[in-house]
């Protein structure tokens, strides 16, 4: 096996390169099943992290993980960002946290397996972190079943109101606070 290229932090200046308009609008425009998942990203002192970037990848409502191109569609004439075409479900979202450390994702509920995969980047984080957002109605899977209750709770979004869920990410903390992060070996 060839040795991999090492990771380095995304640093503070990705903001004009990686985020794109509509990055958090994964659900096709006006889709009636759209859910909102939102929350804050916190550091080990409980302070919100304003310079982190979250990426989301998930199955469609039918459980398909085929995805589709067109997340960052551009105009070949002007080079300007056109945004998603409003019809295809690409399964991919990218959202920078705002000055308050907050993010919001509008998407469709994933079919089985019923979670959103999340990749966390931040200034100060030398190697990205993977976690998962499970909706409260998701069936318990292998990973959830393997975790002790206080750790499992960090992976389950909390319903706030109809179709709106809260999911905070704590990059560092005690076992009851720190989000479970995953190693795919």
């Amino acid at each position, binding site marked *: 096996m060839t*040795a991999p*290229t090492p990771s380095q932090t*995304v640093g503070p200046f990705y903001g004009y*390169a990686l985020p794109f308009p509509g990055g958090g609008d994964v659900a096709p425009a006006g889709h009636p099943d759209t859910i909102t998942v939102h929350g804050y990203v916190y550091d080990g002192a409980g302070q919100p992290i304003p310079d982190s970037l979250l990426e989301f990848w998930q199955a469609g409502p039918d459980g398909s993980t085929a995805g589709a191109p067109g997340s960052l*569609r551009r105009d070949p004439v002007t080079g300007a960002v056109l945004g998603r075409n409003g019809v295809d479900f690409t399964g991919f979202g990218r959202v920078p946290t705002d000055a308050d450390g907050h993010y919001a994702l509008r998407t469709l509920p994933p079919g089985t397996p019923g979670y959103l995969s999340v990749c966390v980047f931040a200034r100060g984080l030398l190697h990205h972190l993977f976690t998962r957002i499970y909706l409260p109605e998701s069936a318990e899977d292998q990973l959830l079943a393997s975790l002790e209750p206080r750790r499992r709770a960090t992976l389950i979004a909390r319903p706030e109101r109809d179709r709106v869920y809260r999911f905070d990410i704590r990059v560092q903390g005690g076992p009851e606070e720190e989000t479970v992060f995953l190693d795919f070996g």
Partner: protein
Amino acid sequence: MTTSIERVSAAPLGQADIDREMAELRRTADAAGNGAPAPLHPSRDYPPYRSSVLRHPKQPLVVVRDPEAVELTGPVFGVTDVTDLDSDLTRQHVGEPLGERITVTGRVLDRQGRPVRGQLVEIWQANASGRYAHQRDQHPAPLDPNFTGVGRCLTDDEGRYHFTTIKPGPYPWRNHLNAWRPAHIHFSLFGTAFTQRLVTQMYFPGDPLFSFDPIYQSITDERARERLIATYDHDQSSPEWSLGYRWDIVLDGPAATWIEEGRS
């Protein structure tokens, strides 16, 4: 009122303090190595890089070995996601940017050495003076109205990517007193699986700042660090036009052959 003692304790750390910490961590890593394979990535807990202190997990990561995991698939990108001009950072404005024109090319491979085809490569960088076109960059070096420093492309059937740009300058930052980053280009890469995701930085050969930089030195194994350094390739240089650099990228993460079958 500020006493002299307070003034001493408030003094920012200097390069010598950071150098001492980095040397100590290298020694610890070497001792821990002792026959065991060297770490392939930086430790997320690397105190000489001050911003890492509160931004690394303290709980052990949970190992997932589920062949059904969604993370063994990944987002797809296509011709609608990039335009032809996106890979030439010197042609995004009316005029030409200042600086040393270069091309950077290489292949994106998985750990089995297979090409990663049709996947998105994104880059961003400072201009020739070491200044980012970013509001938060306070370095008093000139902005270049003809350089933004953002590019993207899709890899071809051999996993190849190609960018034309200018060589970025080194720049100061506030990790410690007199902290300077070696010149680098930020890279973002996707594989066929989301687990292969990589964000990293490409450096230039012979940079005198390598040994002073806690971000570069956070990779404690020398051979692993050197994987981030591009090679000057005279055959890639273009007469009376540009200098060529080559840098191959190997994505980590479980390779999922069955995904490629379903996709390609």
